[in-house]
């Protein structure tokens, strides 16, 4: 069995990859004999990966979005942006490590980037509260949003959070109010804004970074009003029904693109972003640059008006009562 972490449905792939590794480890002398076998196995793996990863269910994608090896915000920060200078603190109460933000360059363009950081290992995840910000984290974000607004610096937000934090301090210090403030601040921020969801887009915590001119998602990211587990617990009183809930919630990038909630889906390598963070980062960087070019060609007033129109049109309703379903 592999020492790598894998999700249940990945097992056949991982096992075959392990076999391949074993073969490759054989001493030089044997190599000529097995070179054909290696080639064969590689082909098999490619085919298998396509079969396994090309048609993931909603739930499998949610699992992918939470994969422990999945690149976190810091990884992409390194790979996509230059000259990052981190800015800390909400100037009110604390410096929340679940939110990272600062000045950076995207190509030659100065920008402000603010994102949610889950942490790279257990220790880091603990101090970053698994990417679930406290109110001071949202407040730091608002401070940096406004900094971007003041200096007409394009704002790029990175979304990767299971959601708001169910904790006493977070409630007492008003997480609902500060999330609302994120929404209203972003809705009228006088500068171009782009959000990229790189993994988990959990409810209000994700939306707090998501009211932007353009919103993109990685292929295996999800974006949802509630976690599948939470939804399953309510609807079926059974969190084992999370896969069904994930399906029902229409939370995959593909579906959200079709519904017009997001503006683009960024392809991941077969097997997920963690199998090739660099190429994934390359793709994110590319789309950011292209989009920013578009946005920068418009006057800020127009951008803000269009952003308002964008959120304003979300919603599906009818002009008459829908027919009763047969019960």
């Amino acid at each position: 069995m592999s020492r790598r972490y894998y999700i249940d449905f990945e097992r056949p792939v991982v096992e075959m990859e392990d076999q391949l590794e074993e073969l490759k480890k054989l001493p030089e002398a044997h190599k000529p004999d097995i070179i054909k076998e290696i080639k064969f196995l590689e082909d098999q793996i490619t085919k298998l990966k396509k079969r396994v990863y090309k048609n993931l269910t909603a739930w499998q994608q949610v699992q992918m979005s939470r994969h422990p090896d999945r690149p976190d915000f810091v990884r992409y920060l390194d790979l996509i942006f230059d000259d990052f200078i981190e800015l800390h603190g909400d100037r009110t109460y604390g410096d929340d490590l679940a939110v990272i933000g600062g000045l950076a360059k995207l190509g030659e363009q100065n920008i402000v980037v603010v994102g949610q950081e889950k942490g790279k290992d257990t220790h880091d995840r603990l101090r970053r509260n698994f990417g679930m910000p406290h109110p001071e984290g949202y407040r730091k974000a608002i401070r940096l949003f406004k900094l971007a607004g003041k200096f007409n610096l394009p704002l790029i937000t990175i979304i990767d959070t299971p959601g708001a934090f169910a904790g006493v301090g977070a409630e007492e210090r008003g997480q609902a109010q500060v999330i609302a403030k994120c929404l209203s601040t972003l809705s009228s921020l006088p500068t171009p804004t782009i959000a990229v969801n790189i993994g988990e887009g959990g409810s209000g915590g994700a939306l707090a970074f998501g009211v932007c001119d353009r919103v993109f998602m990685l292929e295996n990211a999800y974006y949802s009003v509630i976690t599948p587990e939470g939804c399953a617990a309510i609807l079926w009183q059974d969190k084992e029904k999370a896969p069904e809930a994930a399906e029902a919630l229409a939370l995959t990038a593909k579906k959200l693109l079709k519904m017009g909630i997001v503006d683009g889906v960024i392809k991941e390598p077969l097997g997920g972003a963690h199998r090739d963070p660099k190429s994934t980062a390359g793709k994110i960087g590319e789309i950011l640059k292209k989009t920013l070019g578009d946005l920068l060609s418009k006057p800020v007033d127009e951008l803000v008006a269009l952003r308002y129109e964008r959120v304003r049109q979300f919603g599906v309703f009818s002009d008459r009562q829908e027919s009763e379903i047969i019960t």
Partner: protein
Amino acid sequence: MPFTDWLKNRTQKTQEAANKRAVPDGIWSKCTICGKTIFQKDILNNFHVCPECGHHFGLSGHERVMMLLDDGSFSATEEDLWPKDPLGFIGSKPYRQSLNNAIETTGRREAVTTGFGRIKGNKVGFGVLDFRFIAGSMGSVVGEKIARLFEAATSERLPVITVVSSGGARMQEGVLSLMQMAKTAATVEQHNQAGLPYISILANPTTGGVLASFASLGDIIIAEPKALIGFAGPRVIEQTLDEKLPKGFQTSESVLNHGMVDMIVPRDELRETVGRLISGLSPVSSDQNLGDQVV
């Protein structure tokens, strides 16, 4: 997984709240909170507040209008907006069925009532969320009507008052419900930037995505006494963190102490207070109708 048992418990809490919210039936009935037996008319004549323990029972949208606005002044913005089932959502029961049940039992087409009326002579935009309709949750129609309310109030330069009691965003419309948070917040921000007053009233319970969007963006925020006000529910937090919650956690009183609301106003003073606030927020003092000068 902090979200696992999260909403299971929120539902539980929500349902308990729903059960407790209704004024009990019968000529004589037992208060669901304090257990005292009370002549029902005494509750109804007391703004649906238990005369024994002061518990504020839930109110329908219609009852809120009756209680807060000047007699006969309210005209609802009755757009032909009905809820839809955009995801074909089927949980333990189909969303469409929940909707039709709610429509049938409440006689409403959605959880929200919006319109224009007067409070103590001042013309205002008015919106109310009715907890009886799928826990006052916010889906596309609720978001759209709140958004239209703020847009209309902005263009007519009127204050807005909202009264909410809500379990949050409506799960069954998926991410579309989440987007209503952004939509309503954006319209409140426009209204705000136009220099117009917004007074938000939080009734029991106000949680989740409604608290985390328009309802928290009032220039002035009022809580009804002893309401549950919070993003995540108290039991969820208790279970997630395995720690005892502070006394009075997430009650109006605690939320006031933590600086999140401006005041707690018992229901029998609500109309008076809102009237004074509205007239007090206009630059020139006047008991006259501010709206009249504008519309």
